[in-house]
């Protein structure tokens, strides 16, 4: 398996030219938010921050699914893992996220059956092989992964597997952008919109947001020249005072998106009000399982009611996710909160802003 074409998007000459164009054009001081955690990681891994001119500040947004998973959702996952005869299946990122008193990783070390899977279909396979157990998949993620989780519920129904359940803590991106703009003290001049999410929902999904706020918005891919190209387009829009909703990732993202995936997602899930860590409840931005599929809903099956959980004292994850603070401004960063012993989810997830700063950013 080779991703050969990706090399073109890492060509140092192309990147250098883009940096030159950005540097020549950028006069106005702007704060751009990259919404997606994969963008944050790519920006750090490629050292893009120290290539672009000082006029441009890059802020990391609420687009790391693990980071915005609310504390009470993590507590609910841990509560389910305590039920008898259960196997919890999850994507790897979630293992270390601390809930109020424990984490999935610690529960696993304490003997609970918690398994990392690479796809929902691995979870279904585990359910098929263990008919005497209840297999729960922890559905965390945005529109990128929600359709495959929806498809797994449809497959379980087709295959007549009745011991497979999903705990849906999914969230959708466009409504979060509205909520961000309403956050007090927010100062964002343009958005680098997520690539993977947009493959599914299409650039069209951001039109209502763009129409209301009329600010520069560009959908970006993940290779260095993808990101630099998008930054250049945002700078052009700013300097020319022609804000627009543009797509710099045309090789993967269309205006309509992946209509089939969206349909499957909407067939199985319906919008719900959910809490985002650090932002609070955003009406309609969650995806709960429709009543028609309630047999597969872990929340109902195990009668879980999400309790009010207090986010850890002093943790600035919320302000970091909304671009109000950078990790170095958090009193816990690198002192109490480290990847070894994380306090907030932004330090745990490989795509979390604090983890990215910790790993790639040297302040001294």
């Amino acid at each position: 398996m080779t991703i050969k074409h990706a090399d073109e998007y890492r060509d140092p000459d192309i990147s250098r030219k883009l940096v030159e164009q950005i540097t020549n054009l950028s006069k106005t001081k702007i704060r751009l938010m990259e919404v997606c955690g994969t963008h944050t990681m790519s920006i750090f891994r490629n050292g893009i921050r120290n290539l672009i001119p000082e006029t441009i500040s890059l802020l990391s947004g609420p687009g790391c699914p693990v980071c915005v998973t609310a504390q009470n959702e993590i507590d609910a996952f841990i509560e389910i893992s305590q039920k008898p005869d259960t196997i919890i299946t999850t994507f790897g990122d979630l293992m270390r996220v601390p809930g109020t008193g424990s984490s999935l990783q610690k529960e696993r070390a304490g003997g609970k059956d918690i398994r990392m899977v690479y796809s929902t279909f691995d979870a279904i396979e585990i359910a098929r092989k263990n008919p005497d157990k209840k297999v729960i998949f922890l559905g965390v993620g945005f529109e990128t992964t929600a359709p495959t989780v929806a498809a797994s519920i449809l497959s379980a129904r087709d295959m007549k597997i009745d011991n497979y359940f999903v705990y849906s803590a999914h969230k959708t991106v466009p409504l979060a952008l509205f909520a961000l703009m309403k956050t007090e003290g927010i100062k964002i001049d343009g958005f680098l919109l997520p690539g993977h999410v947009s493959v599914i929902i299409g650039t069209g999904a951001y039109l209502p947001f763009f129409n209301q706020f009329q600010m520069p918005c560009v959908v970006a891919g993940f290779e260095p020249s993808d990101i630099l190209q998008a930054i250049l387009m945002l700078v052009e829009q700013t300097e020319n005072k022609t804000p627009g909703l543009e797509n710099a990732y045309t090789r993967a993202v269309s205006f309509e998106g992946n209509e089939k995936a969206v349909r499957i997602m909407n067939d199985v899930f319906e919008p719900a009000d959910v809490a985002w860590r650090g932002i609070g409840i955003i009406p309609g931005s969650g995806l709960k399982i429709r009543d028609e599929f309630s047999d597969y809903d872990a929340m109902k099956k195990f009668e879980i009611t999400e309790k009010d959980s207090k986010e850890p004292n002093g943790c600035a994850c919320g302000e970091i996710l909304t671009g109000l603070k950078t990790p170095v401004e958090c009193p816990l960063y690198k002192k109490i909160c480290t990847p070894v012993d994380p306090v907030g989810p932004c330090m745990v997830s490989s795509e979390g802003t604090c983890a990215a700063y910790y790993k790639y950013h040297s302040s001294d």
Partner: protein
Amino acid sequence: MKIDRILLDHGSGGKISHSLTLDIMLPAFDNPMLSKLNDGAILNIGGKKLAFSTDTYVVDPIFFPGGNIGELAIYGTVNDIAMCGGIPMYLSAGLVIEEGFLISDLEKIIKSMGAAAEKAGVKVVTGDTKVVPKGAADKIFINTSGVGLIPDNVDVGSDKALPGDKIILSGTIADHGITVLTQREGMTFTSSIKSDTAPLNGMVERIFNSSRDVHVLRDPTRGGVGTSLNEIAEKSNCGIKIYENKIPLKNEVKGICELLGFDPLYIANEGKLIAFVASKDAEKVLSAIREDEFGKDACIIGEVVSGHPGKVFLETGIGGTRMVDMLTGDQLPRIC
């Protein structure tokens, strides 16, 4: 949140493993040979310098493309001794076998251990076998220990890197870790990559034959090249700069790493070494490594600098700069 149980992360070779060594092991065994925390201990016995090392192998699966647990157990200890500058000579082997394990599989593993010992020029001179009830161990675990003589004029160690040293990497990174990962249950990749498991004592001999100005040798196993370089930067109190586009990486390995969100700099290798060599001898040593059967893709990947002591920086493919930190715990596959 206090960690009160052993987590898998404690075995990752990164910071969490490190804390176990520092907090629990060192206070109990404290002595100057151990506290160096090198791949092996260097002992002075009867006027001779001896390298002594031990390692335990629990790899899952036990058979994988490019090798098996037995070969790995021989080469791993051979390499640890070689990285201390020693000429590996005698090994011990201890087996813990789960009840019900196939004798034919055991034969296969032991035979390949024999062949590996022969290839590396060492002898397995003592051993032990224990059988535990089904479920008390996973198939088979192997411990090997070994000793080797360190020639009089050899003096290498993780604390001996000097500003100006060139850093040579003997070949492509992350092959072993990604091979094993893709073979595990639940991963359905089909790929042609295989483990790089190999003895490196021959390569080390070539290195010393070409230069006496070799300061550090390390085999970047658990925790990968990123973690090894950090340990060297810390112990030698020097800065390290490496160049992303100089680091050899197979396309396939790179593809799988990207898919899972893994950084290949933190993935295990089992047949690669890093050598820190005085700049004047770097090209000579590089040619010597390339002549070895396991060093054909060797490259100079960076140098030791006088700035930012204790830290490793990487110049990215597009000319940016970023820090390379030590691995914390095992890398976890990302959600999207």
